[in-house]
């Protein structure tokens, strides 16, 4: 397990010598990772531990690692045409993203607060570089800098929280913290620590009011990197957050729940309403990504009883849809000389039907229209919240998703608006294949999930 993880890292670093092989080797490594996860799945009655028990690979960790590797495979394949095959930049970027994925794996499997913090940092530090990777673009540099600056602040807050909890319990181990917490006899120190960690995570997953960095960074960073951040990174942050709250604070006090509820409501309202007035489609997708964080936080809020499989399903299906739409956006705007307003999408259905089709399906999935898997994700979120009697929150979810449908559909309408003298947009065979596969996946997962009522985790 760990071996394959290390293997990828070493490979990615080493491959500077043979640049043409970077992509196949990366994919092979990820497939090996995925394969080893599947092999290990359910085999261990007792989850097997690594690094002296600081990482714990139970089904939860394996499941999320699978989500990351699947999304990463798609991401690498889809963005493969963005770089010259021999540029040194490409290998740098690949290595950095693989490091980041290592952080993601750590975040899904940690059993100690130390590893939690390490995971967050391993995840984030490559991202600061990636966000600024378009060196000639001032916006990209700005994004990297902003992200780094605010990210450090969040890391500091989180570290402070971890320190407070250590002070209160004298341990980093999640289980031990949980037993202390479960007695109900915890100090204010501990609660404060818990909330500081929550704040740190809130920043990482970009929920209001700690979301302000996200639209700027998402827009400034190169679109491929934005896709990476909005999907894999977000999934990883939520995986870490859920693990912490489900393991250590399963019955978190009312005040924590209330804070999360307020965060969800704020996120949904702010992101969806602001998205309506956006002219840049990239920024619009950034806000859309924010609003999905609102839904996913719902699962964390209910982590006391909501099974992790729902969050897993949501991150996977949202990741697929979001990645597809970012990738298509990248294609279209680069053809249009960087224009990513709705105008740029006009007539796409004639110019490249596959793209238009994939984009439509992805947007509809994010809007939550059946029979696409995005609908099921939202459905699970709403049923979970309903089971906890958070009716007001559910109403906000439904109202704001109506607003969301408006801006998604407006983009779709643009694609189907005919324009004069539209040249065709060419795509590589690999990309076209990916679009078709991903679009189908959105359909297949819907039916598969409905049929299986989701696998047990």
């Amino acid at each position: 397990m760990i071996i394959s993880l290390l293997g990828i890292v070493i490979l990615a670093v080493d491959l500077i010598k043979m640049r043409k092989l970077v992509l196949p080797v990366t994919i092979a490594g990820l497939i090996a990772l995925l394969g080893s996860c599947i092999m290990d799945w359910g085999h261990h009655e007792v989850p097997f531990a690594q690094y002296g028990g600081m990482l714990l690979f139970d089904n939860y960790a394996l499941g999320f690692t699978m989500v990351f590797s699947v999304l990463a495979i798609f991401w690498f394949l889809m963005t493969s045409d963005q770089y010259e095959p021999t540029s040194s930049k490409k290998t740098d970027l690949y290595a950095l993203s693989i490091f980041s994925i290592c952080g993601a794996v750590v975040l899904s499997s940690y059993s100690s607060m130390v590893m939690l913090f390490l995971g967050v940092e391993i995840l984030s530090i490559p991202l600061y570089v990636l966000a600024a990777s378009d060196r000639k673009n001032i916006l990209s540099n700005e994004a990297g800098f902003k992200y780094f600056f605010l990210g450090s602040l969040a890391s500091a807050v989180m570290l402070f929280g971890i320190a407070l909890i250590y002070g209160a319990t004298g341990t980093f181990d999640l289980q031990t913290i949980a037993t202390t917490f479960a007695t109900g006899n915890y100090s204010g120190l501990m609660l404060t620590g818990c909330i500081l960690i929550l704040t740190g995570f809130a920043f990482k997953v970009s929920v209001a009011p700690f979301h302000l960095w996200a639209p700027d960074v998402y827009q400034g960073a190169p679109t491929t990197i934005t896709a990476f951040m909005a999907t894999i990174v977000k999934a990883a942050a939520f995986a870490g957050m859920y693990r912490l709250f489900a393991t250590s604070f399963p019955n978190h006090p009312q005040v924590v729940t209330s804070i999360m509820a307020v965060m969800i409501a704020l996120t949904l309202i702010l992101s969806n309403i602001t998205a309506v007035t956006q002219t840049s489609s990239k920024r619009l997708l950034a806000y859309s990504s924010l609003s999905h964080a609102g839904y996913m936080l719902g699962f964390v809020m209910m982590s006391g009883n909501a099974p992790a499989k729902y969050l897993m399903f949501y991150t996977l299906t949202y990741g697929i849809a979001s990645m597809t739409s970012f990738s298509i956006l990248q294609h279209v705007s680069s053809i249009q000389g960087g224009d990513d307003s709705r105008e740029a999408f006009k007539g796409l259905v004639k110019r490249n039907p596959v793209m238009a089709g994939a984009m439509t399906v992805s947007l509809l999935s994010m809007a939550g229209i059946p029979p696409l898997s995005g609908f099921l994700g939202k459905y699970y979120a709403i049923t979970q919240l309903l089971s906890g009697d958070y009716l007001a929150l559910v109403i906000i979810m439904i109202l704001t998703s109506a607003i969301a449908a408006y801006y998604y559909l407006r983009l779709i309408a643009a694609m189907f608006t005919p324009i004069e003298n539209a040249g065709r947009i060419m795509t590589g065979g690999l990309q076209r294949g990916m679009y078709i596969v991903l679009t189908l996946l959105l359909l297949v997962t819907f039916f598969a999930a409905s049929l299986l009522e989701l696998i047990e985790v």
Partner: protein
Amino acid sequence: MEKLVTLVPLFPLAGFLYIIFFGKGFSKGFIGTLASSTILLSFIVSVLVFTTQMHGAHPAVVKVFDWITAGSFKVDFSFLVDPLSSIYLLFITGVGFLIHVYSTGYMHDDEGFSRFMAYLNLFVFFMLILVLGDSYVTMFVGWEGVGVCSFMLIGFWYKDMKNNDAAKKAFIVNRIGDLGLIIGMCLLFAYTGTLKFDDLFISGSDISGIPGGVATAIGISLFIGAMGKSAQIPLHTWLPDAMAGPTPVSALIHAATMVTAGIYMVARSSELYAFNEVASQVIVWAGILTSILGATIALTQNDIKKVLAYSTVSQLGLMFVALGMGAYSTAVFHVITHAFFKALLFLGSGSVIHGMGGEQDIRRMGGLKKHMPVTHLTFLIGTIAIAGVFPFAGFFSKDQIVAVAFEENKIVFILSLIVSACTAFYMFRLYFLTFHGKFRGTHEQEHHLHESPKSMTIPLVILAALSVVGGFIGLPHAVGEEMGMHWHWLDHFLQDAVVMPSMHMTMGTELLLMVIATVVALSSIAYAWSIYKKRGVLADEDKDMKSSAQKLLYNKYWIDEIYDTIIRKPVDRISDFFGKFMEPKLIDGLVEGTGSLTKATGGIFRMLQSGSLSLYIFVFIIGLIAILLSL
């Protein structure tokens, strides 16, 4: 044996599907034969089913498939075979077969021939579902299905807007009735938890628990459904207009079968009505008023089919009188004899219209006797039968209704005698004006006159024979005893299916009533004869109508105009208000307002996103402090 019953509706359905999907390349002869033979097969099976019932087989429920299962609400698609449904099967398929055969001749030159035959088959299918259904729900499927077929067939010649209007009117008026039926069904379900006839009536315990007021409401709601289907005041206006359809349709749907669905439904629910005085009285009075209204309007109409249509309205009213007075089997008796002679009359009128090249106004006819001998003779038999002359079919069934009325309510009795008098008069007026005197049409029409083909006259002859002997299934006691025949056979046959009244009439009274009825009918006929045959009086042209009573009747009491003023115009005005003000100003304003508000808010939120790093940090810290303060 009962399992066979599934086949009965299956044949016409197969016929319909085959003709609609594969009928394109085939000749009219093949299509006609196919459509008719499916009904013939159904008829044969119906005879088998009927025979077992006649020999005392127990009522049986035949399950076809699971239909609706939603929680505790479960409906099987099942058929109920009992005396009531089996006798309905018999005359639906029997009369239906004859009308199919007739249609092959009547519609032969029509370009929509195969579509017509397909619709007829579909209609028979739904009609069979209606009477076979073992619950109100299954019955309702047939109920709506025949409504749709009726709609399609009234507007069969859809190129003429008038026909479409008539079709729409029939459909809309029926919907009002259907709403009543649905309300009745819902109430019934709410109070008993079932809609199966078995549970409700045959085992009988389930309806006894319904409180009296609710039972009345259920009874009246169901009756409103019957009003729509069976054209009773105030929902009768669609039936005369429905004559816009081809004549076989008028005969099959709007005289013999579909319009008697309301009577079937009330008879089927007889246990519900038997102990419900209020609902029953409503039925009696709605019935007798409709009957009077129809009979009086028919006196002055000049369209051959309109006379028959109002006559149907009037006869249906009489059937409801019988139902309301608790004589359920008597009503069914009249349904059957009426099916024979009214189908005969309609088909006869169709033959006349066919011969006249589409002319329907009796003021343009006359003297057809010598040109169309078979049509003339059979039409005369039908006329005598409906007028109620001994021993034709109409005499016995009508006499039974009059006798029941005599027992129950003297006012209704008098009114029903008036209806009988009117019936005899307008029918013979129609007969004399059509078949006697001099021909009044154009020269071309006279040249064109011919007897109809065999495919049309043979059904006429068979129906005429049935109109003569059909009454023997319900001979009154006095006559039956005298002739040594089985009297009140139908009542005995139906006694397991519907509630039987307790009649205790002496044979003397029975005889006296028969004499009175005969005298009334004969004197009406004589009066009609003296006016239209002996003195040769002709019907007035529209502009010559002088007396206000005549105008009132000729214009059908202006009921359509009244509906127009009190319902259609106000509704139009309300629609106008909603269409021109509520929708564009108020609703759109609200809807668009929501959108603009969202956008405006978005603009404000957007300003927060200024891009300034210090502002972001400020918000971050403020947020953190706010959370910590809330602890």
